[in-house]
C-alpha cells in the first residue's frame, strides 16, 4: 500500500469518526441527575433527597437583586421583569412583593375563606364580634384603604379575604417600596423565582438563567441598572461553565502537546493523526454503547469514562515505537498483541465488577470503559497496522536513546526488601497523616467563590429565603395525615421563632389546613338564621345600610355546607404551587415539608422536630452519605477487580515471579500516590479514586511491556522509547490539569501525573530485567562513540 493510500484511508477513518460522533451526539441525552449516579437511597433523608426532592425545596429558588438606579425605576423594572417571567412555564413562582395576595384566592375558592382562615379558631361570628368589625370597616372606608376594601365588603365584612392574603405573604418578607420588595437599605429591588427544573438539572437551570437575563435586558432599556443572580442553580451554572471553559483551554493545550510530542518522537506529522484514531474510536464506541444501553448518560460517567480510557492513548505508541524496516506492521502488531491484550483484558475484566455494583452510574462507566478500551485495542491490532509507515527509523538505532538506556541500566535494581520498606512507609503515611481521609462534599470540588457565597447569604437574609440545607419532614399515610401532623408542629415552630432559633418557616398547612381543622372551623360557623340575627343587630347600630352585606350570609352558608378543600381542589390556582412544593404525595405515602429561614440553631430545631414525630433533615449530610455509599460500592468493586486482575495476569504470564514483577510497581505506585496526597493534607474524593484506577491501568501496561521486552537489548530500547513517549505525553497532559484552578480537574491531573512518574520509575527499577548480553554491547557502543 502506498503512503498516499494509507493517508487517504486514515482520513476516511477520521471522517467516519466525525460522522459517528455526530450520530452519537444526536442521541446523547446528557443528564446531571444525581439519581442516575448514586446508589439507591437507604435513610429517610436520602430517600427524600433522591426520590422526591432532587436537592431540597430551596434548591429551585433563584434570588434576584436589581441595583444601580433610583428606587422608583428599579421598582418598575422589577414589576416588568415579574410580568415577563411569570408568563413563562419555566418558573412555578415569580415573586417580587408586587402581588398583595388578593389574587391568590381564586374567585371560586372565596367562600372557603372561613375554613382557611384561623379567625374562627378563637372567635365566633356573633353580634359583638360583627359590631366590632363593622366599626373597623367604617374606619377603613374613611382611610386611604377605601378603594381597596370597598369592593370586598358586601360579602366579606370581616375582611377575611384580606387576612388570608396577608397570612400567605412570606412570614418575614422584605420591606416593600413602590409596590415591590426592597432590601433594608432601599437600594436593591428583590425578587425570588422558583424554577420548575430541579436544582441538579444544569440544562434546566441554564435555561431559566438565560430567560432571566434576556428578560432583564429587555426591561432595562438604557437604565444603568444591574442584575445579580444567586442561588444553587445560578452557582451550578456559573461553575459548570467555568469548569467547561478551563477544561476547554487545557484540552486545547493538551492536544497541541500531544501532537507536538508525537511529531517529534516519530519525526512524522502523520503520527499524531494515527495515534489519536484508536482513542477517538474507543471513546465514541464507549459513548455509543452507553447511549444504546441506558436512557440518559450521566455527565459524570462521560467525564470519568474519558479519563479512564485515556490509557488507550498508549496503544498506538507501542506499535509506532516497535516498528522498523523489514518488519511487517501486521507481524509487529501480532507480536505486541499478547502484551497489549493482557493489559486490556485484565482491565476490562476488572471493570466488569462495576456492572454488579448496583449503581447505574458505575454500570454506565463499566460499559463505557470496557467497550472503549476494547475498541481502541482492536483498532490498534487490526486496523492501524495497515495505515502506519512500514519502515520508519528504528527506535533502537537512536544513539541518544542508547545513551539514556545505558545510564538507566546502571541504576541499581530495587530489591524486594527495599520495595517492601518503601511500601510500609507509604502505608504508614497514608494511614496516619492527620486530617480526614475522604472528602464527601461534592460541592467542595467545584467551589463557589467566597464573595458570591456572602452575597447569597445577604440576599437570603434580606428575602427570608428558606435554608438550602435543612428542612423538616413530617410523614403521613396520606396528605391529610401529613397536613395534620405538620399543623401540630406549628405552635412549636412559633416558639422556635420567638427564641430566634429560626427567623421564619413555611409549610403547606399555612395555605391549606387539614380537613379536620377545616371541619372544626365549619362547626363553629353560625347557622343562617343565627347569623342573620347577629348581623342585623350589628348593622343597625352602625353607619352601614341595612342591606349592605347581603352576600355575606350566603357565603357563610356555602362555607358551612361545603366539603373541606383538598389539594386537588387547588389545581389551576396560584395556591397549587405554594402547596405543591411543600406537600409531596406518593401512592400510600405523603410528606409535608417545613422549610426554614434564618436557621441559627439546627440542634434545637432537630430536638423540637423529633419531639413532635417529625425529623430535621440535613440534605447536605444526606448527599454526603450517598457519596460515601457510592464510594463504598466502588471500593468493593475495586477490591474484587484487583483479585480478578491478578488472576487474569497470572493466567497470561503463568509465572509467579513475572506476575509479581508486573503487578508490584502499580500496587506500590498506588500506595505512594496515596502517601503523597495524604502527606500534603489532600482529602481524597471520587475523582482521586478514578484517577488512581487510571494510574494503575497505565502502570500495568508499562510493566507488561517492560516484562514483554525481556532481556533483548533492541527490544528493551524500543520498549523504553514507547514508554518514554507514553509517559511523557500522559505526564504533560495531566500536569496541565493539575495546574487548573478547579479542584476537580486538579484532583484528576495531580493524581495521574504522580502515578505516571512513579509507575515509570518503578517499572524501570523493578520490572525491567537486566539486559544480560545487551549491557556489554552497550558499553562497547558507548566506548566507540
Amino acid at each position, binding site marked *: 500500500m502506498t503512503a498516499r493510500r494509507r493517508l487517504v484511508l486514515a482520513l476516511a477513518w477520521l471522517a467516519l469518526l466525525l460522522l459517528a460522533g455526530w450520530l452519537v451526539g444526536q442521541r446523547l441525552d446528557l443528564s446531571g441527575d444525581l439519581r442516575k449516579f448514586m446508589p439507591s437511597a437507604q435513610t429517610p433523608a436520602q430517600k427524600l433527597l433522591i426520590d422526591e426532592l432532587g436537592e431540597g425545596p430551596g434548591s429551585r429558588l433563584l434570588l434576584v437583586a436589581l441595583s444601580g438606579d433610583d428606587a422608583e425605576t428599579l421598582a418598575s423594572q422589577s414589576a416588568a421583569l415579574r410580568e415577563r417571567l411569570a408568563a413563562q412555564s419555566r418558573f412555578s413562582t415569580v415573586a417580587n412583593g408586587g402581588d398583595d395576595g388578593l389574587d391568590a384566592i381564586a374567585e371560586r375558592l372565596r367562600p372557603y375563606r372561613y375554613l382557611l382562615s384561623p379567625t374562627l379558631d378563637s372567635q365566633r361570628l356573633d353580634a359583638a364580634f360583627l359590631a366590632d368589625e363593622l366599626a373597623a370597616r367604617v374606619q377603613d372606608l374613611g382611610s386611604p384603604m377605601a378603594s381597596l376594601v370597598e369592593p370586598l365588603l358586601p360579602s366579606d365584612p370581616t375582611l377575611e379575604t384580606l387576612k388570608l392574603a396577608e397570612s400567605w405573604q412570606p412570614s418575614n418578607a422584605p420591606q416593600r417600596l*413602590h409596590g415591590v420588595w426592597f432590601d433594608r437599605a432601599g437600594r436593591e429591588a428583590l425578587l425570588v423565582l422558583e424554577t420548575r427544573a430541579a436544582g441538579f438539572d444544569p440544562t434546566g437551570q441554564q435555561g431559566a438563567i438565560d430567560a432571566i437575563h434576556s428578560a432583564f435586558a429587555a426591561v432595562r432599556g438604557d437604565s444603568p441598572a444591574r442584575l445579580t443572580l444567586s442561588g444553587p442553580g445560578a452557582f451550578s451554572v456559573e461553575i459548570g461553565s467555568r469548569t467547561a471553559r478551563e477544561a476547554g483551554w487545557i484540552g486545547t493545550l493538551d492536544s497541541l502537546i500531544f501532537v507536538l510530542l508525537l511529531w517529534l518522537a516519530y519525526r512524522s506529522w502523520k503520527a499524531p493523526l494515527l495515534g489519536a484514531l484508536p482513542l477517538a474510536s474507543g471513546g465514541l464506541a464507549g459513548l455509543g454503547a452507553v447511549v444504546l444501553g441506558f436512557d440518559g448518560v450521566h455527565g459524570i460517567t462521560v467525564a470519568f469514562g474519558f479519563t479512564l480510557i485515556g490509557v488507550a492513548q498508549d496503544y498506538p505508541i507501542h506499535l509506532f515505537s516497535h516498528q522498523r524496516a523489514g518488519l511487517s506492521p501486521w507481524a509487529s502488531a501480532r507480536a505486541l498483541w499478547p502484551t497489549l491484550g493482557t493489559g486490556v483484558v485484565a482491565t476490562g475484566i476488572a471493570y466488569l465488577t462495576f456492572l454488579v455494583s448496583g449503581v447505574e452510574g458505575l454500570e454506565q462507566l463499566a460499559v463505557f470503559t470496557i467497550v472503549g478500551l476494547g475498541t481502541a485495542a482492536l483498532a490498534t491490532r487490526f486496523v492501524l497496522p495497515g495505515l502506519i509507515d512500514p519502515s520508519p527509523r528504528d527506535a533502537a538505532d537512536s544513539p541518544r536513546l542508547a545513551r539514556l538506556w545505558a545510564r538507566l541500566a546502571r541504576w541499581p535494581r530495587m530489591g524486594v526488601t527495599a520495595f517492601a520498606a518503601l511500601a510500609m512507609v507509604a502505608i504508614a503515611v497514608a494511614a496516619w497523616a492527620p486530617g480526614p481521609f475522604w472528602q464527601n462534599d461534592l460541592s467542595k470540588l467545584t467551589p463557589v467563590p467566597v464573595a458570591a457565597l456572602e452575597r447569597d447569604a445577604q440576599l437570603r437574609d434580606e428575602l427570608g429565603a428558606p435554608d438550602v440545607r435543612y428542612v423538616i419532614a413530617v410523614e403521613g399515610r396520606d396528605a391529610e395525615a401529613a397536613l395534620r401532623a405538620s399543623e401540630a408542629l406549628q405552635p412549636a415552630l412559633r416558639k422556635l421563632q420567638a427564641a430566634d432559633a429560626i427567623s421564619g418557616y413555611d409549610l403547606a398547612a399555612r395555605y391549606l389546613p387539614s380537613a379536620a381543622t377545616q371541619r372544626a372551623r365549619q362547626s363553629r360557623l353560625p347557622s343562617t338564621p343565627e347569623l342573620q340575627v347577629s348581623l342585623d343587630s350589628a348593622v343597625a347600630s352602625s353607619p352601614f345600610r341595612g342591606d349592605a352585606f347581603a352576600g355575606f350570609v350566603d357565603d357563610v352558608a356555602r362555607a358551612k355546607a361545603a366539603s373541606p378543600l383538598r389539594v386537588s381542589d387547588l389545581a389551576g390556582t396560584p395556591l397549587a404551587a405554594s402547596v405543591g412544593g411543600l406537600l409531596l404525595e406518593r401512592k400510600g405515602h405523603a410528606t409535608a415539608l417545613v422549610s426554614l429561614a434564618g436557621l441559627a440553631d439546627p440542634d434545637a430545631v432537630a430536638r423540637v422536630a423529633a419531639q413532635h414525630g417529625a425529623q430535621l433533615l440535613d440534605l447536605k449530610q444526606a448527599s454526603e452519605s450517598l457519596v460515601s455509599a457510592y464510594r463504598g460500592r466502588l471500593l468493593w468493586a475495586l477490591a474484587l477487580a484487583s483479585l480478578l486482575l491478578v488472576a487474569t495476569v497470572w493466567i497470561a504470564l503463568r509465572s509467579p515471579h513475572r506476575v509479581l514483577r508486573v503487578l508490584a510497581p502499580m500496587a506500590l505506585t498506588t500506595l505512594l500516590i496515596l502517601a503523597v496526597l495524604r502527606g500534603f493534607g489532600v482529602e481524597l474524593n471520587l475523582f482521586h479514586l478514578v484517577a488512581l484506577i487510571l494510574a494503575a491501568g497505565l502502570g500495568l501496561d508499562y510493566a507488561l511491556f517492560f516484562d514483554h521486552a525481556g532481556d533483548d537489548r533492541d527490544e528493551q530500547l524500543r520498549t523504553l522509547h514507547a514508554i518514554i513517549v507514553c509517559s511523557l505525553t500522559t505526564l504533560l497532559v495531566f500536569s496541565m490539569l493539575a495546574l487548573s484552578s478547579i479542584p476537580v480537574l486538579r484532583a484528576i491531573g495531580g493524581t495521574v501525573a504522580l502515578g505516571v512518574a512513579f509507575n515509570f520509575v518503578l517499572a524501570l527499577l523493578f520490572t525491567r530485567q537486566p539486559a544480560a548480553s545487551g549491557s556489554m554491547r552497550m558499553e562497547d557502543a558507548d566506548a566507540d562513540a
Partner: protein
Amino acid sequence: MRTGFVELRGSALLKAPLRIEGEYQRPRDGTLVREVRVPYAETTTIRAGEVQIARAGKSPRTFSLSRAPELGGLQASFGALLSGDRALLEQHYRIAVDGTRARWVMTLTPKQPGLAAQLRSVVLRGRGAELRCIDTQPIKGDLQRTLLAGAARAAAGVSDASALQALCHGNGNGVAAR
C-alpha cells in the same frame, strides 16, 4: 408643613357620607402623614410608594400606594404645590388652570394609563398661596372631597353637603373670607 383637613367620604354601603377631620403633615420631603382626629384616631404614613395605616391597639397595615390612586394624586399634588414644582406634577398629570390668582382652579388628569384607569381627575381649588380644596373623582364610585387650610377651619361644625361644596368652591360665606 401642616394643614388641617375636613374630608367627606361617600359610599353606597353607608347611609350617609363619612365626615373626617384631622391634619395633613409633611415632616420631610417624600413623606406625607394623614392624621385623623375626629371621629376616631388613625395615622396614615405615605412614603416611597407605600401606605401604612396605624390604629391604636392594632398592628399597622401596609399596602401599596398603587392600590389607593386618589391618595397618589393627593401626595403628588401636595408635594408639588408645596415646593412649587410644576415639572414634578407634569410628570404624572396633564394640568389645566383656570380662574384668577384670588380664586383659582387647577384640574389634573392622569397621564399614565394605569392611574387613568382608576382616577378620572383631581381638581384643586385655592386662593393665592392657599390650597383650600381637593376633589378627587375616581372612575368607579363617588367623588371624594377634602377641604384644607382655611376651608377646613371654616368647615368646623358644618355638615351640610351643599354648604361644604360652597366652601370648597370658594363661594365665600363670610367665614372663608375672613
